[in-house]
């Protein structure tokens, strides 16, 4: 581990006002900064996939290990399993899954929503900063489109982004009609804040509890509707019919310790992200269930993935105290004007550049010895919350109550002392390839939300994820409910897992590893224990 400035000394520097708070010169060579310091470019972390639809493409090695792994179950596990039948199976109880279930149920479809933990235990409930929608008079959907494309380094799919930005205002209206509150000015207009790397204030929010507010409302709406919810019910495999069409899933009920077969006309995958795989040894901001299960299950069934070598490391995860490592401090704090300072007290990057650049710059400061080191060996830089509060008295309490609450628990007053921050594994930029309705390349299988890919290219801007989950969740829910009147499937099998074993053997890959992962290993829990 590289040298740095001890936390106590750095605090003294800070309080003495050492260093320069002037905006540092513009980064001239962003590509070089990213290549040298962004974790996506770490040497030896990428491998070439040897099986499946993305064979021959580059992928992070930890993800590759579970994409090219054997199934958790075989036919013998299914003997005597309980069987349920429904029109539509939604997998995952975050925002995307709930939006899909609500839309489909409103169209009269019978819906089962199956989720690994409880309904709402998800990344959605944790979102802080807000949700994008171009609603201000100087802003346009076209500007939103361009910002999204540019921040993703022009790798996003234009058709998907066009759908996203044009749906934005309607999504906000839908959420309000479901009972979600947003912060308003005294005349009732929605307040907006600016996301890093964008050209206009466009993020609407509910203090720094946007995700909590959204999830509470969606959960209550689902619970009050006709959808049947199965909790503590992780999906461990998908089912196919006689022609390779997705036809349901196998669930392992944690409460009953038994397998459940759900036969469905179509399936919407909404299992969220990957943070709990702790790629490259990073801490994560993600909830406990974010283990890339959806990617694994869809890939196995033949769905193409996109941009699976690109992940978002959010610049400001907490780095002190150690028990909180990885916990997110919203970009909203920088958007409101808080600066980042290194151990010498100098600013080192425009804090509102896009996230991958800010992250790379923080990692550069730490690598070159200007970072701050704690007694426990954690590293980071300062997020200058005291100056923000001094220049805007009361702003922390008005806009960031969650930050203050967090401070209380770890005995740090963000108004009096800067917060130590370090990048945290935050978001899966790519995912399952989809079209404007969330359809994947496998018939009958949809993917929505963080598990899907194509919108964010290689870098996501704040607020586009919450917009995506509602926009595409509803689209897929609507599309899938069109199919409920056709003829049902004849066969329901896990045949494809046998082909998988064959393919793995042929490629000389290990059959030791089983996936999906379901839970991080530090939880000491496996379904076959």
């Amino acid at each position, binding site marked *: 581990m590289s040298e740095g400035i001890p936390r106590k000394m750095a605090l003294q520097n800070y309080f003495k006002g050492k260093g320069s708070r002037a905006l540092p010169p513009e980064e001239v060579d962003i590509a070089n900064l990213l290549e040298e310091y962004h974790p996506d470019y770490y040497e030896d972390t990428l491998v070439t996939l040897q099986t499946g639809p993305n064979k021959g493409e580059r992928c992070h090695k930890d993800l590759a290990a579970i994409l090219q792994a054997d199934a958790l179950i075989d036919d013998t596990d299914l003997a005597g399993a309980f069987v349920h039948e429904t029109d539509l199976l939604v997998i995952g109880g975050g925002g995307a899954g709930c939006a899909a279930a609500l839309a489909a149920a409103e169209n009269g479809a019978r819906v089962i929503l199956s989720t690994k*933990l409880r309904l709402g235990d998800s990344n959605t409930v944790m979102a802080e900063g807000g949700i994008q929608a171009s*609603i201000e008079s100087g802003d346009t959907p076209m500007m939103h489109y361009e910002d999204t494309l540019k921040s993703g380094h022009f790798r996003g799919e234009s058709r998907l982004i066009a759908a996203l930005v044009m749906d934005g205002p309607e999504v906000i209206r839908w959420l309000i009609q479901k009972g979600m509150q*947003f912060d308003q000015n005294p005349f009732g207009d929605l307040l907006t804040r600016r996301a890093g790397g964008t050209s206009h204030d466009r993020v609407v929010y509910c203090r720094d509890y946007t995700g909590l507010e959204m999830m509470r409302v969606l959960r209550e709406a689902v619970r009050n509707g006709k959808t049947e919810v199965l909790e503590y019910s992780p999906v461990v495999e998908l089912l196919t019919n006689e022609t390779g069409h997705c036809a349901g899933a196998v669930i392992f009920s944690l409460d009953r310790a038994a397998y459940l077969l759900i036969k469905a006309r179509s399936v919407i995958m909404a299992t969220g992200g990957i943070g709990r795989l702790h790629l490259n040894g990073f801490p994560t901001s993600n909830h406990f269930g974010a283990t890339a299960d959806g990617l694994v299950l869809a890939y196995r069934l033949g769905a193409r993935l996109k941009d699976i070598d690109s992940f978002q490391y959010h610049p400001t995860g907490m780095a002190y105290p150690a028990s909180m490592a990885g916990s997110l401090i919203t970009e909203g704090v920088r958007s409101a004007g808080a600066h980042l300072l290194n151990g010498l007290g100098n600013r080192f990057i425009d804090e509102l550049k896009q996230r991958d650049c800010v992250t790379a710059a923080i990692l550069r400061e730490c690598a070159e010895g200007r970072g701050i080191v704690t007694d426990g060996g954690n590293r980071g830089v300062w997020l200058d919350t005291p100056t923000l509060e001094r220049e805007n008295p009361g702003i922390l309490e008005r806009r960031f109550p969650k930050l203050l609450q967090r401070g209380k628990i770890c005995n740090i007053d963000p108004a009096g002392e800067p917060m130590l921050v370090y990048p945290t594994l935050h978001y899966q930029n790519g995912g399952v390839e989809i079209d404007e309705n969330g359809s994947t390349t496998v018939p009958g299988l949809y993917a929505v939300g963080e598990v899907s890919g194509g919108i964010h290219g290689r870098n996501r801007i704040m607020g586009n994820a919450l917009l995506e989950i509602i926009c595409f969740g509803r689209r897929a829910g609507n599309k899938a409910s069109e199919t409920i009147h056709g003829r049902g499937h004849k066969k329901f099998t896990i045949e494809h897992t046998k082909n998988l074993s064959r393919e793995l053997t042929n490629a000389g890959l290990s059959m030791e590893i089983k996936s999906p992962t379901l839970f991080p290993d530090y939880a000491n829990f496996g379904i076959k224990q």
Partner: protein
Amino acid sequence: MGDRDITVNINGKDITVPATMSAIQAVWHAGHPRVHGVGCLEGVCGACKVFVRRAGRSIITTELGCQTMVEDGMQIIFLVFPTPNHHTYQLDDFKNSWDTQAQFHQIFPEAAHCRHCGGCTKSCPVEIDVEHGVNLATEGKFREAGELFLECVMCGLCLTSCPEEITPNHVGLFCRRITAYFHIRPSNLINRLEEIRKGEYRIVEG
């Protein structure tokens, strides 16, 4: 804050762990399996309810296990139980905001029977004045009541401690939802929706 080891009792088992851990981290560190009652790990999902008794103290508090740092001699019990709600309603059934108060009392008839026992407020791990919120709702002050529940993580502890089966957290959420449903009408959003409806914006792809 050092890496001093301490001993805590979790679900009846003594475990020795570094003092810098949360209750959930401590269980895992000791090698015990735990997935029930774990969610966001950040204090917002309400999955990780625990009873806590600190060394030398007789009172038991209810807290969130991911936000509770272990201390020497602490006793912790994980509370994993469902918190069923027995009220249902559809916002779409509310046609006129003048009738909200009457409809509220039809949906939540128990709310008016609050005994002011304070049980809900005492049990709330995020220190919401739950009882006051319920009473404001009963008086029809929905916007004010809802605001009190901004930080509610829906853990359901208030619900399980209410002798009148009032489900205070769902009352609070109702107040927030009905306020949005009837009263959030932002002109900036509505203008933009109108412009889009008239076809004033197109995306030029490429």
